């Protein structure tokens, strides 16, 4: 996203620099010095671990410095692909992402557009209410939901029982658990996305809308032809974030509420690799699972970037 804006800010100034002048500029230390802290952090926290994880994925090791790392070739990958829980985790990851979409993109988009027309205090109160779930700590939120959904005493379960729907094991029945966790993750996200959409929406130049109104555009027409196109960079950004990080955001809730169960129905690739690494202390499996996730998401991220470049509309 920032890349693209930089692209747009740059072109004219750069194009005018004559070729000779560009060749004259030699290597200087200064810019590298400015970049050094960021580069160091990036190397230390991202690229070095990435390379190490890649290496570890070919070894069998229980993370103890005193025990040897045994080279096992591609065995870790073969085992992972043979495991039914890996397949289940990948499908669940997809489900989390698809399930989060309405709550991280569609609902917030319309809430933001609709609340734009509200006046004064009503708008503030309405937005504050939507934003509250976001500032509740994940573990606290998870525990609140556990109480609400408890099969014996939970308010929601008891409420549903009085309406004649019977008791539903939201967290204990494999049929519902995944949907429940997706909902909890999404519920936490609505506020964040609404905030971003509201900010983008408020940033739209009001003169466009005035002009459209003078020309007799309907309310829906304004949304369709002015607001939505101008919100497209934010829509694409949030879609990309949901696809790339959505399943990760569910980690805290999986860990607190279900530990991946019942019957692995709520586990996803991120929870699985954490379990391999830090519960069963198998660095090799964990790294291999991490590499699979990395490769998959790298491809998807590239696709998303291309889509953003292709479809986003900027108002410059």
């Amino acid at each position, binding site marked *: 996203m920032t890349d693209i804006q930089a692209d747009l800010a740059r072109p004219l100034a750069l194009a005018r620099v004559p070729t000779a002048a560009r060749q004259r500029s030699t290597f200087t230390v200064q810019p590298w010095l400015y970049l050094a802290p960021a580069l160091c952090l990036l190397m230390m926290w991202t690229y070095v671990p990435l390379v190490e994880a890649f290496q570890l994925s070919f070894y069998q090791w229980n993370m*103890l410095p005193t*025990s040897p790392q045994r080279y096992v070739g591609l065995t870790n990958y073969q085992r992972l692909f*043979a495991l039914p829980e890996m397949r289940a985790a990948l499908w669940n990851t997809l489900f989390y992402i698809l399930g989060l979409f309405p709550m991280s993109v569609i609902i917030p988009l319309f809430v933001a557009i609709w609340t734009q027309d509200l006046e004064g205090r009503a708008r503030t109160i309405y937005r504050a209410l939507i934003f509250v779930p976001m500032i509740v700590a994940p573990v606290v939120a998870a525990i609140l939901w556990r109480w609400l959904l408890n099969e014996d005493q939970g308010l929601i379960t008891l409420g549903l029982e009085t309406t004649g729907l019977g008791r539903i094991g939201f967290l204990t029945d494999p049929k519902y658990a995944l949907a429940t966790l997706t909902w909890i993750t999404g519920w936490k996200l609505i506020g964040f996305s609404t905030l971003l959409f509201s900010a983008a929406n408020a940033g739209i130049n009001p003169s466009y809308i005035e002009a459209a109104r003078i020309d007799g555009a309907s309310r829906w027409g304004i949304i369709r032809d002015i607001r939505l196109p101008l919100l497209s960079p934010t829509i694409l950004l949030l879609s990309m974030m949901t696809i790339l990080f959505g399943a990760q955001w569910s980690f805290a809730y999986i860990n607190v509420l279900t530990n991946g169960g019942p019957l692995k129905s709520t586990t996803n690739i991120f929870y699985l690799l954490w379990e391999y690494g830090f*519960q069963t202390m*198998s660095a090799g499996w964990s790294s291999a699972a991490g590499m699979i996730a990395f490769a998959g998401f790298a491809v998807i991220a590239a696709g998303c970037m291309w889509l953003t470049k292709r479809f986003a509309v900027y108002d410059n």
Partner: protein
Amino acid sequence: MLRRTTLKLMATLTAASLLPLGASAEMPATIDKPVTISFYNYNLASAGIGSEATKELIAGFEKKFPNVKVETIAVPSNEIINRVQADIVAGKQPDVAQLTFRDLIFIASDLGGNALEDMVKPAELKDHLAGMIPKGLELGKVDGKTYGLAYTFSTPVLYYNGDLFKQAGLDPNNPPKTWADVNIAGKAIKEKTGKNGFFPGAYGPSDGTFVYQAIVMSNGGKVRDGNKLAFADKNAAEAVRMLRDMVDSGAHAKIDPASGSDTFAAGNLGMFVYTTATLGAYKKAAQGKFDLRIAPMPSFGEKPTAPTNSGSALFVFSKDPAKQRAAYELLKYLTSKEAYTIITSKIGYLPLRLDIVDDANYLGPWVKENPMFRANLEQLNRLTANVAFPGPNYRQVEKMMMDSVREAVFGKGDPIATLKAAQDQGQELMP
């Protein structure tokens, strides 16, 4: 300047690398100088009774040995081994740790735990171990050497809710003795009261494997035989099928595996098979709310039950002789008659010194007041070791096994085929 620093650094490094050699020096007979030892403990990480009693024990020890300061590190039981490992990796040498038996082999072979026989003079060790239950001591041994000194121990018992029994038309004075009885009682409770019938504390993330293994071994099964996994073999698999049949009949509840204990404490579960370590907590929860009862764990027909120990042993990791002495004194104190009086009466673990049970100076009065605790004591005679898994992948094998048990009990497929598939996969990870 730079050279001097390098030299200094090298000298320090050499000294550090020599340290392990120094560790083979004999530990002193007394503690003359002030010393601080670390103690990783999971009872401290629990809320309430377990933590209070442990603090009381440590205060008592520090009073007796004013030279020793015990720095406690509280970690929940399912994470404590990871924490000890992480601290060793980070170069922070733990001194004493309360760890569970499932990690025994790993501690001895990989984590560098000290064998008491290598650390303490034979006569001194023999002196202290006299009077402790031999079967208990046996559980902490690897290749004939004691790495873990049996500390807090309990066996699974059948907790039951007397009020729910009455409401379901059952006799609370005649608790279920076999699994067939449990099935009948569980169905009755479910149908007549609408509450949950039966649940074992066997599937949750912090439950380990002891309840599951106790059920399997009571049916003559075993989870492994040498380096061969055996949890899908006949008797072991039949035990799991029995649980599945109870799920199908409705006697076995289908609740969140992590919530069995809370559900029972809240009075919403008729029967719960779990460690006696939670007795104190249930007594508090049941007070004035429901009639808490205890019975020995159910059996498979006439077969004798195999109550498997849950609980922990104390492990010493210290390399420095002075610290080793302090650590050993802490071990001695925590497994003394005085300590077991506190541990049993306040937390609910078994006393590993049976001579204190009827001694008026120790547990005598308490056992008289709490006759139901005898169910636990009686099972001590049949105490069966919890089987730990060997090799670098032991945790993964254990996880595969427990995952397949959950799938077999609560899933839709054939329970035995589910176990078999997991056993074949797990076998590849065995040494």
